[in-house]
């Protein structure tokens, strides 16, 4: 069902915050080190041009995974995403080159893309919001680190808003159900009555969050101290 998809996405994002409070089971590396490791592995995945190089990046990712032991990774979800992404890329490659020769290149590109995002997922699963803010405070202005952490926190809320708008508009007759969207001439409806109100809601949400932060004296001093818990 259409709503189920939103609910699953919302649940996935919401779970991100629940994992904040699971005890770390892997090696307790400093957040800065983990962040740097994730960034390096992602960059290496993009730079890999040969199978051997990609194999080495894969081995490095496996090692990091075993060391950090992230909790709550859904192999089923990750597997499905990979299969979907691979299918799309391989089909596009076959169409582009007109033969099965595109299959190997398509598979490599897909694996490369997967490895580019995997380290970020491992980092997010093994690091709490408070720790990320603390680490970011050292390398960027506290306002910016607050904005980044808040964006992560409110992503599920914004998705709920989008879901409400979507469901309300479906019953108002908007042609935006998955079957409707198979026809490209219905796409303007999606932009017009879901994306536009969602952007307006997103801006209103940003305004409300900013006000909530100012109510608690955010911005009174140029630097902030940090809660030592979590």
């Amino acid at each position: 069902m259409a709503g189920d998809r939103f609910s699953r996405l919302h649940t996935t994002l919401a779970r991100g915050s629940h994992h904040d409070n699971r005890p770390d089971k892997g090696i307790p590396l400093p957040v800065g080190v983990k962040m740097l490791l994730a960034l390096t592995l992602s960059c290496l995945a993009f730079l890999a041009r040969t199978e051997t190089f990609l194999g080495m990046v894969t081995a490095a990712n496996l090692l990091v995974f075993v060391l950090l032991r992230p909790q709550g990774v859904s192999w089923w979800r990750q597997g499905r995403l990979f299969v979907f992404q691979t299918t799309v890329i391989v089909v596009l490659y076959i169409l582009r080159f007109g033969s099965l020769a595109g299959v190997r290149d398509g598979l490599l590109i897909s694996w490369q893309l997967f490895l580019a995002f995997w380290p970020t997922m491992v980092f997010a699963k093994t690091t709490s919001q408070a720790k990320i803010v603390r680490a970011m405070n050292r390398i960027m202005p506290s306002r910016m680190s607050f904005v980044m952490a808040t964006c992560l926190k409110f992503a599920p809320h914004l998705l709920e808003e989008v879901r409400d708008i979507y469901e309300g508009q479906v019953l108002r007759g908007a042609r935006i159900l998955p079957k409707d969207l198979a026809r490209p001439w219905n796409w303007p409806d999606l932009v017009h009555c879901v994306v536009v109100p969602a952007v307006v809601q997103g801006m209103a949400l940003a305004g409300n969050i900013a006000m909530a932060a100012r109510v608690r004296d955010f911005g009174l001093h140029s630097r902030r101290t940090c809660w030592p818990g979590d």
Partner: protein
Amino acid sequence: MDVLLQLKNFSYTYSETKAAVLQGINLEIEAGRCYCLTGPTGSGKTTLALAMKGLLEKDGCSGEVVGPDPSDHGDFRVGLVLQNPETQLLATSVGAEVAFGLENLCVEPGRMLARVEAALSLVDLRKPLDYPVARLSMGQKYRLLIAALLVMEPQLLILDEPAAQLDPEGLAAVHDILSDLKGRGVAVVLCEHHPGPFLDLVDRFWQLDGSGRLSAGRWRASLMPSDSTVSKTAGGYSVAPVLLGVRDLAFTGHGDVPVWEEVCFDIRRGQRVVVTGLNGTGKTTLLRVLAGFLKPSRGRVRIFDAEPDPRLLRRRLGCLFQNPQKQIFENTVREELAFPLKRLGWSSREIPSRIEDTLRLCGIEHLVDDSPHKLSYGQKHLVAIASVLAPAPEMLFLDDPFAGLDGARQQDVMEILASWNREREMTLVWTSHDPGEIPSLADGHLHIEGGCIGWR
């Protein structure tokens, strides 16, 4: 008594409007007293709260806001809880949330723990400091928000419309906290349409009259519609056809916890049913399951003699979820109403008269060429309802349609719904977070409690 805050001939105008929202306001707030600011929706209560907190743009202000003498009171702090707790909780764990204000005040990390624990104890929220905020109930979130302000040691605490969000249980807990704070010398200002649960705490009422003027006294909306305005349809419903049938329905939420189960009920054509339950009992989830947006874990729903499917329901079922204004996207009220009519296959010849009729019945025909985005809160609410009513659905689901509206606006909405029900036999199902206040509009009452749903 110590005077904590004074507003002297204070006025405020938003940069995008010409008329002043607040005009010549004079007030005094004394330590340890509770004030209740009343007034219709959009009369400027929140603006006045922001003025007391010092959060309004300086350009629009005139007059004086005078705090206490720093030698007597040290740093004067005002705590303000805005309407929606969900958008004010900024951290993921209870401890980090309460500590947010201390971080902003540059309190040494080593001194935070004791202050955070003391603030949580003041609101009687006994949870581990690393407990996820997302797992708290709405009432607990509201108390957490109060703790997050109390940790900054305010001398004045302002709450903006607590009753719009909290169920009776949550309101009772907030009442006890406020009573305790008054005893400790903290001044409290409630901006509230429905001050009922706090009446015994209030020392003084103020009212904003809608033109920005403040005076002493309590603003009251005109009376709720009587049974004469919301007349019952003649005859019993037992003979009307069943439009919505639910058998052995269950829904399982996150973590395989059942939200409710073994739900059975029938709703017949023309019925007006209110679904009540405390915050988090699954009222919105029930509407989403009935409309076919969520799949139940067990059981059967039959709506218009078929399984619920949004594609098939969109001609016969209208739906307004919480805060209906967020569905508004067109440039004029006329276009907003024309959108569903065009999509649902009305002919271009019928559409103008249909829009005219609907706006007239909703009492907002004068707004037809206005931008819906620039209307007041209450008017936007009516436009959103009109746009759902325009295609004349046979059944309408509304999720907490009266939340945040003052008594007069609630009455407007109720009268519109009552007249459509009376004249077109439109079946109404709406939710409410207050089981204690059942409007006369309802002729059926389903209540959710302890995972069960039953008639009352």
